[in-house]
């Protein structure tokens, strides 16, 4: 029965999305919003089970690497961007990320570039 339900669901959702080709309608919008909701939560679930939960359980609680909490606090500063008074704090993790990307990009990127030029 679940297989039949799955098949009907897939067909209904496929036609709901394709209905946009005719004109925009509520069926397409609902299918689109379902997709956005599922996709956003899928990434969170993966990250939680793959990395965050093992890190907290094993590294922090078992191995006692409490320094990781400071790093996590730094990452949590990102959420201050939703408050106008504390928004400036969110620029700190952004600056760290951008600096990290630029540092490695400038150090390693030209090697790939030069290999392409060599061709």
């Amino acid at each position: 029965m679940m297989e039949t339900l799955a098949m009907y669901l897939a067909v209904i959702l496929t036609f709901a999305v394709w209905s946009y080709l005719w004109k925009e309608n509520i069926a397409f919008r609902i299918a689109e919003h379902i997709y956005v909701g599922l996709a956003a939560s899928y990434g969170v679930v993966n990250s939680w089970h793959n990395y965050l939960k093992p890190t907290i359980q094993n590294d922090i609680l078992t191995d006692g690497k409490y320094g990781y909490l400071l790093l996590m606090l730094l990452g949590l500063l990102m959420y201050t961007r939703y408050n106008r008074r504390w928004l400036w704090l969110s620029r700190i993790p952004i600056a760290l990320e951008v600096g990290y990307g630029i540092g490695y990009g400038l150090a390693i990127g030209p090697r790939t570039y030069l290999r392409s030029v060599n061709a």
Partner: protein
Amino acid sequence: MNIWERFQHIDVRIIYVVLVVSIALPLLFPLNFPIEVSKETKGAYDVVDTLEPGDIIIMDSAYNPGSGPELYPPAVAIARHAFSKDVRIIGFNSWELGAQMMQRALDAAAADYGKEYGVDYIVLGYKRPLAATIRAAINDAWGAWKADINGTTFDNLPMMADFRSIKEDCHMIVVMNAGSPGAGNWVTYVGTPSQNPGPNNPDGFVRTIPIVVACVSVEISGAKASLQSGVYTGLVPGGRGGAEYELLINHPATGVGAMDAQSTGHLAIILFIILGNIGYLASRRSA
């Protein structure tokens, strides 16, 4: 406006319906058009064929379900090829929604060769941030990746006892590339080290790790430039490349089946382009 001039104003909904019919019919009634294997796909096949039993490779699904029809067939085909040589696979996921796709591909290939999860292959799931986890895994994969897609830590996965770092233990990287992030990250951080470790070479790679890329059709032109310059070691170009790889491993599947639909779909588009040009030339003549 005569009949010829009308050809340049065909309602797009007619085009959509004809396109759907022209793609759906060959899927239901296969035409079995012959497929010639390209030198790029043969080259990629030969690169994967150099692997030895026991080698560990990373297969990265840098795509989401939208690109699945084009990249899932080569993923399964390459996994089958690797398993046939008793190569072990670590499934990696650069794109969030690609995690399950890699799991499905490896499960499908493993079933044919009696391979066991945890012993012959694992799937890591989506790790973020991508660049930092790849960089960290070059020297310490256990510290960077921690656990697989189910949250099982590596000390409970027998295969990972032989994989501590990318630079020492990884023999090849295969990327199913639908865009960024994807092959570019692997090329930047792993694929372009200096050859020998030394005082002026902080990377300290003991060998260059070959990178084989299966890309979507849109990426083919850029990927060919990378292949020609040696940045990529092998290339499986687009959905057609996946079909060719299936033929090379003597296991035609969904990739080959989709080629008939691709042929008729392209034919439908070309016919509409010709009709549009007939209408345009007719209207110019009457003007």
